[in-house]
């Protein structure tokens, strides 16, 4: 094949994919992401090792026996007076339960400790005391089997949400949609920013080392721009696909472990909604088809703006200010989609889906919740029409910009270039 556009795309693509940095980021990034997600749990696990002993002085003589120790906190009863214990350096914490604690738990209990009490410890002790006092109080009623009656009376509510505007009623999980929206939005945001700026810097570089003039003596500048955007876009797609494969491999290994049994009853019913969504091939397929199309649309739209900016300036320093033309709407779109995630059917959501500057991001946020087909196609139509216009406009600017060296042009000058023959 000798189509110049193909040759340009091929060069742009291979040059990046073959780089060590690409291979490393592609493999290391997911590991870092997982590490970031796992870090809090990991720290928690590491923090657990130290066991704390709480010496309990119980003047009611009813509560101490009911306090249950766990891996972090051990309750030890003591009859010694508080002052003696305080003098003992080995005693870490003293829990004093006053003799009216059962009737007046708000004031009757004191925890004395050396150093501050961690929140988790505080919460655990409070919880144990609440349970113990509740039990004591219930015993006072002297009704047989009261505890069991109360236990039985506690309802376990979990809301099953079903979309009734779709062709077939379908169980959904709004939490799942929420997190999916958030994830898609973040990924798109990251990719447009990273790869859009890659288009920009790569053009500045070409302009800087003057290879551009040789290329455009063989290929129309417009094709060079288009080829560059497409080539870099394909690099982005490749990265996403690799991550997708890694994720599904990891998922297929981990998912079987997440059976309803070991999730507990609450999570299980929530999980059934997720499962019904994830395992509905129609929903997932159309979701990801649309996600991909909006992704491509958003990338092309913004990277053509980045291309025009890159062509207009002579160095990266000059680009930073101009690039806010592209960065600002992206950030606004992300902020907008945060609002949209909370209310995907609002009129704000609708209008932000029509404006091409915000629609890719906002639609990412809305798609997992399900969007009426006509709205999706309207958004797509507007996005791709403005996309073609944007590429055309930026192509015109690019064609002139790449030969402009020296002083940083103003935005008005750049727009004027578009009118040159």
């Amino acid at each position, binding site marked *: 094949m000798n189509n110049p556009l193909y040759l340009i795309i091929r060069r742009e693509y291979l040059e990046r994919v073959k780089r060590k940095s690409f291979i490393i980021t592609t493999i290391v990034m997911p590991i870092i992401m997982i590490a970031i997600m796992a870090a809090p749990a990991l720290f928690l696990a590491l923090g657990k090792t130290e066991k704390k002993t709480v010496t309990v002085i119980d003047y009611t003589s009813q509560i101490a026996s009911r306090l249950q120790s766990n891996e972090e906190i051990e309750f030890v009863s003591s009859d010694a007076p508080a002052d003696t214990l305080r003098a003992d350096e080995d005693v870490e914490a003293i829990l004093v339960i006053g003799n009216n604690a059962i009737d007046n738990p708000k004031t009757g209990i004191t925890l004395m400790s050396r150093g501050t009490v961690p929140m988790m410890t505080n919460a655990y002790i409070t919880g144990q005391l609440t349970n113990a006092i509740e039990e004591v109080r219930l015993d006072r009623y002297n009704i047989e089997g009261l505890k069991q009656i109360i236990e039985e009376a506690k309802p376990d509510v979990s809301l099953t949400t079903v979309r009734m505007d779709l062709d077939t009623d379908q169980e959904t999980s709004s939490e799942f949609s929420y997190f999916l929206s958030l994830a898609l939005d973040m990924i798109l945001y990251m990719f447009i920013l990273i790869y859009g700026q890659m288009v920009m810097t790569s053009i500045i570089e070409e302009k800087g080392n003057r290879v551009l003039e040789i290329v455009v003596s*063989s290929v129309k500048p417009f094709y060079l721009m288009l080829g560059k955007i497409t080539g870099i876009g394909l690099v982005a797609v490749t990265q996403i696909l690799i991550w997708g494969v890694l994720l599904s491999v990891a998922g297929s290994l981990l998912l079987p472990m997440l059976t309803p049994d070991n999730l507990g009853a609450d999570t299980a019913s929530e999980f059934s909604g997720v499962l019904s969504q994830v395992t509905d091939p129609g929903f997932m397929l159309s979701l990801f088809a649309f996600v991909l199309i909006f992704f491509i649309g958003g990338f092309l739209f913004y990277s053509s703006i980045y291309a025009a900016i890159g062509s207009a300036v002579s160095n990266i320093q000059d680009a930073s200010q101009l690039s806010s033309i592209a960065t600002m709407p992206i950030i606004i779109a992300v902020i907008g989609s945060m609002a949209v995630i909370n209310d995907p059917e609002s009129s704000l959501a609708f209008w932000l889906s029509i404006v091409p500057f915000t629609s890719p991001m906002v639609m990412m946020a809305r798609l997992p919740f399900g969007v009426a087909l006509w709205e999706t196609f309207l958004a797509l139509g507007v996005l791709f029409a403005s996309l073609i216009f944007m590429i055309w406009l930026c192509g015109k600017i690019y064609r002139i910009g790449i030969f402009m060296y020296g002083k940083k042009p103003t935005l008005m000058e750049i727009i004027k270039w578009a009118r040159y023959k």
Partner: protein
Amino acid sequence: MDNILTARNISKSFVGHQALDDVTVEVPRGKVYGLLGPNGAGKTTLIRIINHITAPDSGTVEFNGHPLTATDVRNIGYLPEERGLYKKMKVGEQALFFARLKGLSSREAEKKVKEWFERLEISGWWDKKIEELSKGMAQKVQFVITVLHRPELLIFDEPFSGFDPINAEVLKREILRLRDEGSTVIFSTHNMASVEELCDNITLINQSRNILSGSVKEIRERFSDNSYRIEFSDDPDPALQASLRLGADFSLEPDNRMGLHQATLRLPESMTRRDAIAVLNESLDLRGFERVIPSINDIFVRAVNAGGAFPPAYNNPSTDTDNE
């Protein structure tokens, strides 16, 4: 004459700046054509128009007798003044990439690249990245990239800048060889020595206009003005008297290395060489008498500085100052 390229009445302007004003250039086939002019005269813009990189505001470009189209650039090889290649790309890969952009099939491209690399003795660089090469080495690669698709028309913008004398000589040899094999060369430069050595025809562009066109020989002839350089051994005084008798302009020059006095004489139109020699012989011991044919450099400087004498349309005050 058979012209490979004719650019007629080309005008092009950018914001507040006219780059080319009604420029016409005719490049005869199989010759080396010099495009001369001071910096900022519009040479590069004209070259870009010929390369179909930018479009003129008005005027036409004909290539091989038909209006220039995008596919014609496959028959053009262009070496820009500001050179550059993809720094991270390997030399061989890069050459193949550009060869294929010019329309060569991948097999043909490989064959040509290898051929040229051998000719310039750079085959060993195939797997090197451009950033590992010195500037001169990269220039050689760039030259190969310009010529390897055997274009009918080659455009070199300041080709010798950055080359050491030995490699410049190699380059000169290759350029002339390409011409002898039938390629036409357009040569943009302000290095006048190389023009006299290489060019058959020239065009002088100054302040966006074509102020002088023709064959090098004819132009030098046209600019020579009955001036002669004389050498003599006795005192300059008799020479001065003799020149007054001739009615000629006389200007004494520093003595030459042989210890002879030198002077330039500009004879009046009516006077022949023979008469002048006769008069001079009477007054002094004449050792040498030689016609002064202006170098292209002199012509260039004279033509550019004559800007003031041209119609005010392109009489730009900023460059109109006498800098002689």
